């Protein structure tokens, strides 16, 4: 293959790809060509190229011929602060378009230590298998006895079978096996490749898990420079001390400013916010800090519940997005129930954001009389009913009862329900909204509308700027008013590219945007680690090209301006209370500005033929 040609002289990356043909049970080694790294940075950038090069656009996401790409970031595992990200790319069974999920589990780092930067999966195994990669070797192993296990059981069983305690695993649960469209991929350190239903893609391939362990070193080109820059990054983070109460530390402030989603986005204030905060978690659940690889921030939480209806429970605590989507979005102020629902979702392997969105959708349908208690199989989905939320998470994961409908995602579920249910299905391009309000931060409305994977807060989060997290190195040097729309098109484009740079290098966004390892320092670290002398301006341009390639894929699938929109309630309906009372999102002017900045025509199509003008194609 053309992209494997050329001798790799760069460091930080292993220089090899695994190509796994599941239908024929064959595994090949491929080289990772140097020009590919230089053109696409790493991680999601290279994954984008590999996916577009190897996948047929029209292939059904769950068909045998579909492709699934896993790529580690260029700096992942090198010791760069926050360098722990890996990306999965596929056509999404949830949205039908570009699908992508980036996660920070250790399995990507072990893969790189084992000598591989990424994996291209194709085909469908005849029987359940898992991929085991260790120090330059890879094999497909029988996973029949793992089929049906939850993600925690699966990871434990693989470690036991391989008789290696420190093997790292990414696995699907029962939801992925049953092709639930909300299915995610979970790692043994409880991090999720959550969105877009990538777990169902693995399930459709009879691929239960990916396990890796490596003893190799990941070399760095300029050790002295690397150490100097990394030290500076650590100094900045120590000074800023972000996220002292984890991601959930923001719940109260977000409610105060009108950013928290409440009652399926129909209410503007929520008295239960304080009960859901990171501070409350610390007091009531013995929450302790939990860090990803090479990260001093430690935004994750380990919790323990000893008493009450959800005890005993020990493990990863819910993050902000989970708390908001399974909490305030459903008017649920019971933090212990959210912790339990989070645990259920993680074990079953379903995305907590989309699951919360689906349950809130069903609650509104039930309130309006569109679905009945009989439809729900007796699970009374009334606002705030925490037991019912936990129960419905189980049903979605098992694809049983009404959970089988909700597990399709709100767009398809609304089609199945009919009776006007689509009004309450809050999604963009089929992906349920994350927990940042377009009423409060108009630029988030635009970011959701134009993200290549549907409503996403991580493929461009321009509201960081309105919240005071500035990035002067890319021109975002002034705090903006989240209620206004002027300039938000340009701002959103820039932030999307910044997020692509972080995902391609494999660096956590919190470290970059909240921790002060800014993008200039990141570009210097990239050069020091890889030995490829580049700069931030060049990396942002490459990010822009990567974005357009993903967009071109979506355009080939029929995506146009009509799809770059928001649920109608954000465009037309006013909230009656809270900080965003009376607000709507005036999307069109922002969209026009954005298209202009991005080089898209009025219908949202790239003005130039991206494929022909890309030197690497």
């Amino acid at each position, binding site marked *: 293959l053309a992209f494997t040609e050329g001798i790799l002289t760069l460091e930080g990356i292993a220089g090899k790809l695994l190509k796994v043909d599941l239908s024929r049970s064959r595994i090949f080694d491929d080289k990772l060509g140097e020009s590919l790294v230089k053109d696409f940075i790493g991680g999601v950038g290279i994954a984008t190229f590999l996916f577009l090069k190897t996948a047929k656009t029209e292939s059904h996401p769950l068909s045998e011929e579909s492709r699934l790409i896993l790529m580690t970031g260029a700096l992942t595992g090198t010791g760069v602060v926050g360098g722990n990200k890996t990306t999965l790319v596929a056509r999404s069974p949830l949205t039908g378009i570009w699908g992508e999920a980036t996660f920070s589990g250790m399995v990507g780092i072990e893969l790189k230590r084992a000598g591989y930067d990424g994996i291209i999966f194709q085909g469908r195994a005849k029987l359940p298998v898992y991929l085991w990669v260790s120090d330059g070797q890879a094999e497909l192993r029988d996973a029949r006895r793992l089929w049906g296990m939850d993600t925690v059981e699966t990871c434990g069983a693989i470690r036991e079978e391989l008789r290696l305690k420190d093997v790292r695993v990414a696995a699907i649960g029962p939801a992925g096996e049953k092709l639930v469209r909300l299915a995610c991929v979970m790692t043994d350190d409880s991090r999720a490749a959550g969105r877009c239903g990538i777990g169902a893609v693995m399930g459709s391939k009879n691929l239960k898990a990916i396990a890796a362990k490596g003893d190799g070193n990941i070399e760095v080109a300029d050790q002295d420079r690397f150490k100097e820059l990394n030290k500076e990054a650590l100094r900045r983070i120590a000074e800023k001390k*972000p*996220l*002292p*109460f*984890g*991601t*959930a*530390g*923001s719940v*109260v*402030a*977000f409610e*105060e*400013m*009108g*950013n928290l989603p409440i009652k399926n986005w129909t209410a503007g204030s929520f008295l239960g916010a*304080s009960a859901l905060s990171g*501070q409350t978690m610390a007091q009531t659940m013995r929450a302790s800090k939990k860090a990803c690889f090479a990260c001093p921030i430690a*935004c994750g939480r380990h919790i323990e519940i000893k008493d009450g209806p959800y005890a005993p429970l020990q493990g990863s605590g819910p993050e*902000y*997005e989970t708390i*908001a989507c399974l909490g305030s979005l459903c008017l649920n102020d019971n933090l212990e129930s959210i912790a339990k629902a989070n645990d259920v979702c993680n074990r079953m392997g379903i995305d907590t954001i989309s699951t919360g969105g689906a349950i809130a959708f069903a609650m509104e349908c039930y309130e309006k009389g569109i679905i009945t208690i009989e439809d729900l199989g007796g699970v009374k989905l009334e606002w705030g009913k925490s037991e019912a939320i936990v129960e419905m998470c189980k049903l979605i994961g098992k694809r049983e009862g009404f959970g089988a409908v909700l597990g399709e995602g709100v767009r398809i579920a609304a089609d199945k329900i009919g009776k006007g249910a689509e009004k309450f299905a809050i999604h963009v391009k089929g992906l349920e909204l*994350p*927990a*940042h309000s377009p009423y*409060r931060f108009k630029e988030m409305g635009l970011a959701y509308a134009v993200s290549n994977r549907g409503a996403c*807060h991580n493929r461009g989060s321009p509201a960081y700027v309105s*919240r*005071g*997290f500035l990035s002067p190195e890319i021109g975002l040097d002034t*705090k903006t*008013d*989240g*209620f206004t729309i002027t300039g938000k098109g340009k701002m959103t484009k820039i932030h999307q590219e910044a997020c692509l740079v972080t995902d391609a290098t494999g660096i956590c966004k*919190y470290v970059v945007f*909240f921790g002060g390892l800014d993008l200039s320092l990141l570009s210097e670290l990239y050069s020091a680690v890889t030995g490829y002398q580049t700069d931030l301006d060049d990396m942002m341009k490459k990010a822009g090209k990567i974005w357009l390639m993903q967009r071109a894929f979506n355009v080939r699938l029929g995506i146009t301006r009509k799809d770059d929109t928001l649920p109608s309630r954000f465009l037309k309906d006013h909230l009656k209370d*809270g*900080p*965003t009372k009376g607000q709507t999102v005036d999307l069109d002017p922002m969209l026009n500005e954005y298209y202009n900045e991005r080089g898209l025509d009025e219908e949202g199509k790239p003005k130039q033929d991206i494929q022909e003008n890309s030197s690497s194609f």
Partner: protein
Amino acid sequence: LVATRKPISVDVIFAGSIAKEIFGEEHMVVLLEQGEATLEGLVDKLDKKQEGKISQILHSPNISILLNGQDIEFLKDKNPILHEGDRIAIIPLVAGG
């Protein structure tokens, strides 16, 4: 006859990391008399109670004041008149999500 006005009551919220560890509480109700019912009046009153902590912390660029969810920085009047039931939130840069 001298007309008298009742004091107004406003809610003050300290959110995020500055709440309990700096102020010892997340929420307080403050009564403001006629003549002090402005943002500056509120800060003066809180300063007396909190030994100058409020104006000290407000000097930080990393702190925002929200009046009913609106960032003061983007209001025309930086010393707005406060009304009965107003919510004033003092929040640090809010990471997360």
